[in-house]
C-alpha cells in the first residue's frame, strides 16, 4: 500500500497572472506533509494542478502507487481521482440538497471503491457518530463542523491511497479546527494514507505534520524537515507568529 506524490518544478498561471513558480515538493509514502502559506500564495492552485483542474505550464507531477508511477499532467480530474487520490476540497463542495448518506455514497462512485462501501461507511459512522444520527438529513441544513465531517467521510468513501486536504480550517470555530485536524491524523493512521494538507493555520497544521513547505508568492520559500524546524524558521516567525 505504498503511495507517494512527486512535484517537480511546476509553473502555473491564470491567464497572464503567474500563480506557481518552479514549485517542487514530495510526499513520501505514509507521510503527512503540510503546505503552509497565507491566502493567495498558491496552495489551492497547486492542489488544482495535482487534480488536473488546472494544467501546469511547465513541470511534472506524478504519483507512485503500489510501485506504478503515473504522470498526472494532462489527465482529467476523473482519471486522477480514479487512481486513488481523494480530495477534501476548500469550502467542502458538498451536495447541499442530498442527505449525509447520499453524499457519502457518491464518494464511492468509482468502481474500485464500491466493494469496500460497507466497511468504509461503518468506519465513517464510527469516526463521526454525529453523521450516523443525521444520515438522512440534507447536508445543506447542517453546521459547518458537521459538513466538514461529511467532506472528510466522503473522501474516505473514495478508498484513497493519497488524501489531499485543502484548507480544512476555513470557516470553522477554533475548537472545531483542532478537532478536524485531529480527525485527519486519525483517518490517516487507521487507513494508512499519505496526506498532503494545505493549511494557513500554522499551529494546527504542525500538530500532525511530519514535514512542511512554506509557499510565498507561488514559490517554495522554506522547507522544514520537522515540525520543530518549521517553528524555528525565520520566515514562519515573520509570517505567522508576527515576531
Amino acid at each position: 500500500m505504498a503511495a507517494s506524490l512527486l512535484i517537480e518544478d511546476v509553473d502555473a498561471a491564470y491567464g497572464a497572472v503567474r500563480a506557481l513558480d518552479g514549485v517542487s515538493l514530495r510526499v513520501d509514502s505514509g507521510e503527512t506533509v503540510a503546505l503552509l502559506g497565507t491566502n493567495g500564495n498558491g496552495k489551492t492552485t497547486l492542489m488544482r494542478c495535482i487534480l488536473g483542474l488546472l494544467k501546469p505550464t511547465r513541470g511534472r507531477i506524478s504519483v507512485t502507487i503500489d510501485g506504478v508511477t503515473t504522470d498526472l499532467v494532462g489527465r482529467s480530474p476523473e482519471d486522477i481521482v480514479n487512481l486513488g487520490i481523494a480530495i477534501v476540497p476548500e469550502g467542502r463542495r458538498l451536495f447541499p440538497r442530498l442527505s449525509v448518506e447520499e453524499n457519502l455514497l457518491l464518494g464511492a462512485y468509482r468502481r474500485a471503491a464500491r466493494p469496500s462501501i460497507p466497511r468504509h461507511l461503518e468506519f465513517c459512522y464510527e469516526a463521526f457518530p454525529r453523521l450516523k444520527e443525521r444520515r438522512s438529513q440534507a447536508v445543506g441544513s447542517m453546521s459547518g463542523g458537521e459538513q466538514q465531517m461529511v467532506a472528510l467521510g466522503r473522501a474516505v468513501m473514495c478508498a484513497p491511497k493519497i488524501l489531499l486536504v485543502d484548507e480544512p480550517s476555513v470557516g470553522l470555530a477554533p475548537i472545531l479546527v483542532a478537532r478536524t485536524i485531529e480527525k485527519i491524523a486519525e483517518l490517516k493512521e487507521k487507513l494508512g494514507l499519505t496526506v498532503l494538507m494545505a493549511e494557513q493555520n500554522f499551529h494546527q497544521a504542525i500538530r500532525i505534520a511530519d514535514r512542511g513547505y512554506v509557499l510565498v508568492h507561488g514559490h517554495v520559500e522554506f522547507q522544514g524537515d520537522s515540525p520543530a524546524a518549521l517553528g524555528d524558521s525565520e520566515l514562519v516567525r515573520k509570517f505567522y507568529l508576527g515576531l
Partner: protein
Amino acid sequence: MDPDLVLLLNGIVSGLLLGGLYAAAAAGLSVSFGMLDVVNIAHPAFMVLGAMLVALLWGATGIDPLVLSILLTPAFWALGAALYVAYHHFFERRGDEAIQGLAFFFGVLFIIEVGLVLTLGPEQHFADASYANTTIQLGEVDLPLRMLVPMLVSLLAIGGLSLFLRRTFMGRAIAAVAQDREALRLLAIDPVRVKRLAFGISIALAALAGGALVVVQPVDATSGHVFIGRVFAIVIMGGLSSLGGCVLAALAFGVVENVTATFYGPSWSPAVAFGCLLLVLAVRPQGLFGRAA
C-alpha cells in the same frame, strides 16, 4: 346525494385524472429543468412527437398505444442524449446556456412542430386503446379507463425513475450534478456523461407522456402549446428536483383546474391554477415540496 356534492366529487376525481396526464408531461421536465438545469422548453413538443409517432404506429400495427410508447422510449432516449451532446458542445461548455440555450430549445420546438406539420399534416391524429370507451362507476363517481390507465402507467414509470434516482450510483449522481458539477469530477464522476444519460431519460419520459396524451385526446402538431406553461408551473411548484413533489403538484394543478372549470367555467381554470402557483411561490419560494438549500 346532493347534486352539487356529486359535481364536486366528479370534478375532483377527473381533476386527479387530468393531473395524472400533467404528471406524465412534467416528470421529464422535472429531470431536465429541475435536476440538470437545462431549460428544455421543447419538452412538450417531444411529447407531441411521441404522441404522433404512436398514432402513426397504431394505425399501421393496431398495437396498444401505451405499449407502443414504451417501445419508443429507447429511440427517444438516444435522441435526447444526442440533443444534449449538441447543447453541451455549443452552449453549456462555453457557459452560454442561460439565454442562448433557451433560444436553442425554442428552435428545437419549432423544428419539431414544423417537421410534424410537413410530414404528417396539420390535422389531428388519434389512437384508440381497446379500453377507451369503458368507464368504471364507483357510486356516483365516473372513472373512465381512457384517463385512468395512462395515469397508472405514467405513475408507475415515475415511481420506477424515483427508485432509480435514490438507489443507484448513477441516480445519486444525477441528483447531484446541478448542485456542483466540479465536485462530481473530484469524485471521479464525469458530469457530462451523467447529464447526457439523464437528459436521455427525460426525453424518453416525453415519449411515454405522448402515449398517454394520445390515449386521452386526439393530437396535432401544436397540441404541446397548452402544456408549456403548465409543465413549468408544475415543476416549479413541486420543488424543482423532487419527482414526488412534481406528481403531487400535477395532481393539485389538475384538481384546481377541473373544479374551477366545473363550477365557474373553463375560461377561469388557467387563471385560478396559475394564481395558485403565484401564491405558492410567494409563501414557499422553494416550491411545495422543495428542500431549502
